[in-house]
């Protein structure tokens, strides 16, 4: 049986509160906080990007996997904020980990679903026997246009997973993908900020695809919501995961452990993968976990996992996600945030 051999997370230390953003745009902070169920979000420093966060999350995954990086046969990063338009992020990651040169590398893009895409493909190659270990990373330093609702949530973070067949910490029992062509969120070539369809991002987009993937994988596996200890849904804001969970018949307690968005924001490709790391941090052997991502455009990947006896041996081998989220935080004012996110136009 194949599954996760090691996992790791990374979150930048900078935060900005909803009130600080709302103050600049004359928006009503309490209604945004209530409407989005969001208090603050992570912000990358100027020297952090998708690549640097992917490297740190992957190093944490290696600490738990305890494998030789040279045995990794595939390195995949999913992101909508790859630093280069042309030049892979994965080559830098593979070099930094010492996994080169006999390694297949690719960058994935599918809005917020790109992370689980990389995981899906890495797992598939392990399952087929093509490679011994595969690394899948979801990482993003996403931007919302100034003053747009997305600016309150677009955050930064990364989660990495090494898949293999030996010394597994969580078996993957089932996978499933659900996808249609739905233009709910996009960014055209050369455009700096994305655009979205407002409320159209809800019912025909997020809710349809997350429900489709969750129902599809549970049917395929012959399972129902009560069979799972934990469930993680993509977290574009605080409300959507609880609402879709309720629609599917999950309880709040099953969702809360992997629900990080209120203090983290939406880390796009890192969102549901980071939720999974927070669950694995406290999972007990035998716990069953459902992971459902969502990427605009639109589609969802779903995974059913079961923690093994080894999970408790590796949990303390690297920093735990909630501890990273709470430790060494630095709150930014909007001006510093605008500088960090290169929102200020400077002379060349």
């Amino acid at each position, binding site marked *: 049986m194949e599954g996760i051999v090691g996992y790791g997370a990374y979150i930048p*230390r900078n935060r900005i509160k909803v009130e600080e953003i709302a103050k600049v745009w004359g928006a009503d902070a309490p209604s945004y906080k209530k409407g989005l169920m969001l208090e603050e979000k992570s912000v990358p*420093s100027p*020297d952090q990007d998708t690549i*640097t966060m992917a490297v*740190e999350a992957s190093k944490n995954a290696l600490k738990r996997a305890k494998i030789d990086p040279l045995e990794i046969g595939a390195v995949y990063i999913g992101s909508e904020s790859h630093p*280069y338009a042309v030049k892979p992020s994965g080559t830098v990651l593979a*070099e930094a980990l*010492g996994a080169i040169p006999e390694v297949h590398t690719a960058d994935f893009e599918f809005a917020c679903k790109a992370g689980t895409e990389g995981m899906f493909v890495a797992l598939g190659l392990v399952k087929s026997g093509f490679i011994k270990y595969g690394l899948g990373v979801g990482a993003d330093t996403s931007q919302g246009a100034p003053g747009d609702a997305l600016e309150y949530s677009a955050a930064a973070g990364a989660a990495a997973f090494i898949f293999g067949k030996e010394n597994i910490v969580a078996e993957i029992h089932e996978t499933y993908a659900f996808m249609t062509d739905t233009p709910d969120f996009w960014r055209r070539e050369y455009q700096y900020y994305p655009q979205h369809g407002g409320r159209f991002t809800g019912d025909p987009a997020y809710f349809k695809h997350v429900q489709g993937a969750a129902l599809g994988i549970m049917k395929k596996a012959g399972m129902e919501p009560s069979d799972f200890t934990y469930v993680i849904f993509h977290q574009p804001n605080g409300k959507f995961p609880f609402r879709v969970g309720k629609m599917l018949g999950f309880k709040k307690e099953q969702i809360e452990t992997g629900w990080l968005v209120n203090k983290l924001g939406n880390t796009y490709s890192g969102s549901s993968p980071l939720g999974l790391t927070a669950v694995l941090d406290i999972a007990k052997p035998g716990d069953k976990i459902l992971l459902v991502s969502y990427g605009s455009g639109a589609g969802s990947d779903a995974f059913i996992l079961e923690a093994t006896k080894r999970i408790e041996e590796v949990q303390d081998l690297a920093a735990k996600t909630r501890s990273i989220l709470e430790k060494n935080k*630095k709150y930014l004012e909007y001006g510093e945030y605008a500088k960090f996110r290169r929102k200020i136009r400077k002379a*060349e």
Partner: protein
Amino acid sequence: MPTPSRYWREIPQRYRLEANACKSCGIKFFPPRQICPECGNKELEPDKLAEKGKILTYTVIRVPPHQFVDQAPFAVGIVELEDGVKLTGQIVDCDFEDLKIGKEVKIEFRKISQEGESGILCYGYKFVPV
């Protein structure tokens, strides 16, 4: 600013802290050397620097070279790694009032600089508090 070829040549050191050590006298070199300057031995074996250490000394740069202007003010320090090697680098994610000689730090992978708006991005190591 490094050219792509110079940057590329330094990747093993910048990304993975690859060093080497003299097989005869055991001295560690970073970046790696081909001949030991102490004993003249040509047999050196691959090694890697430790990823944790303590701040030996530091300063805060407020008027930096032009490619680092956006990062100013920032701290630069000499860190004695756990293997005894002393390494210079930026110290980030640490408020200046918390910088102390003897403070424990670890290596983290960060963007060091970029060649304008269209050139290559240069990555490498910086120090962050443990």
